[in-house]
């Protein structure tokens, strides 16, 4: 048991994990602001990628804190979702761009065609 306690003291995640969590929170908020502020449809989706990234960092940090690899496994799924989202969203954006010849999200304020 003293060996375990020693190892725990060595590996106890403290400051690094909190800094990573603060970074994750700030990154998520920047992504959120970006999604609201950006008017280019592609960059709006890029901002959702920022938010996904922030979620991944939070998963890793909490997983490190609890010494649970489940957090890392979930980040793999986040990567999957991000890849699927990129493929679909960009396909849609290209479709919309062909119709209006602009990437501005405001071109689609009225959705009837």
């Amino acid at each position, binding site marked *: 048991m003293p060996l375990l306690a020693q190892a725990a003291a060595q590996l106890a*995640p*403290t400051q690094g994990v909190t800094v990573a969590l603060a970074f994750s929170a700030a990154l998520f908020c920047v992504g959120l602001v970006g999604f609201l502020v950006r008017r280019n449809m592609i*960059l709006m989706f890029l901002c959702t990628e920022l938010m996904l990234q922030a979620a991944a960092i939070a998963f890793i940090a909490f997983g490190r*804190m609890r010494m649970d690899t489940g957090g890392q496994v979930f980040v793999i799924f986040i990567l999957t979702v991000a890849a699927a989202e990129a493929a*679909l969203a960009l396909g849609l954006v290209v479709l919309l761009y062909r119709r209006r010849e602009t990437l501005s999200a405001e071109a689609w304020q009225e959705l009837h065609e």
Partner: protein
Amino acid sequence: MNPTDTISSAPLMPFYIAAAIAAAGLLFVLRPARGNLRRAGTVIGLAGFGMLLAQAIKLAGPSESSISTPFYMVFAAIGIIGAVRVITHPRPVFAAIYFVVTVIAAAAIFLMLQAEFLAFALIIVYAGAILITYMFVLMLAHQSPEDEIGRIGDEDYDRIPREPMVAVLLGFFMLAALGAVIERAPELAMENATIAQTRMVTRSANALQSMPLAMLAQARLKEPTAISLAKDASGNSGGNSSDNFGGNSASSASTWDGTMLQVRVNTEDNEVRCVAVDPAQCIDNVQLVGLDLIAKYPASLELAGVILLMAMFGAVVLARRQIELGDDERRRAAGMSSMVLDLPETERGGN
């Protein structure tokens, strides 16, 4: 009243102030204003973010500072600068490149958090695959218009932000709300530190026991003459490790006493020796994540496959519609009637 009580009753106040300063800086940076104001905004925002990280460290409690903390802070700062450039840069292509900066900073933080596999997976998948897709579409769709002098300008919708005030306010509230989580994290970590370490070692031991080849390799480090895992008394499997992977085939050749894994191996001179192996140093991150992924979340793994398949179908369907649209436009340009109106019923139903 004890002054420490008042401090502990509002431990998040400095965090909120730091978040407000960072938000104000972000607001200045977002405004399409003159250079000076933006520069001031950058300084204010970075100062706010630095205060934010300092507050996070203070919230971490009276732990001894580790060497890696400055590295965390540096990479966090790089990541945030990249992210802010993503949402402020007037050129979309540059915004996408700055996203790579954020991805690399996040990967560095993953590395320091001992998620080595995902650090590189992140760079390969995000910076390598997803970002290239974004760049491809950006370059496909985005042509900067030239103004009357012939200089390439930026689109209005890339230069002028939409409702920066409201957005920043919302972001500030979001950050303030997340502060509560950050505050609770350190005490959770402290409570869990020893338990988590025990869990880690136990889990490594279990993982090692279900991987006979890895177990034999680890035993060989201590006992170079080992040729195979020993059979147990009842003659069960665990003998030739190369052809019985999976299950708990090797567990009969090993016992776990809480700190060390006792592995029984056959040596070259036909003896059975017992070797003590420290599981915490045997299983690396990739093996643990892989085993977790397969053994604990098989349904989620299948679901991820279905999601990717659906994304592929969706992309194919979207691309097919684009081709039809192209035909339609060509017909209209040639003065013929639109194809959409006189599509045969079967094709219209197919969409």
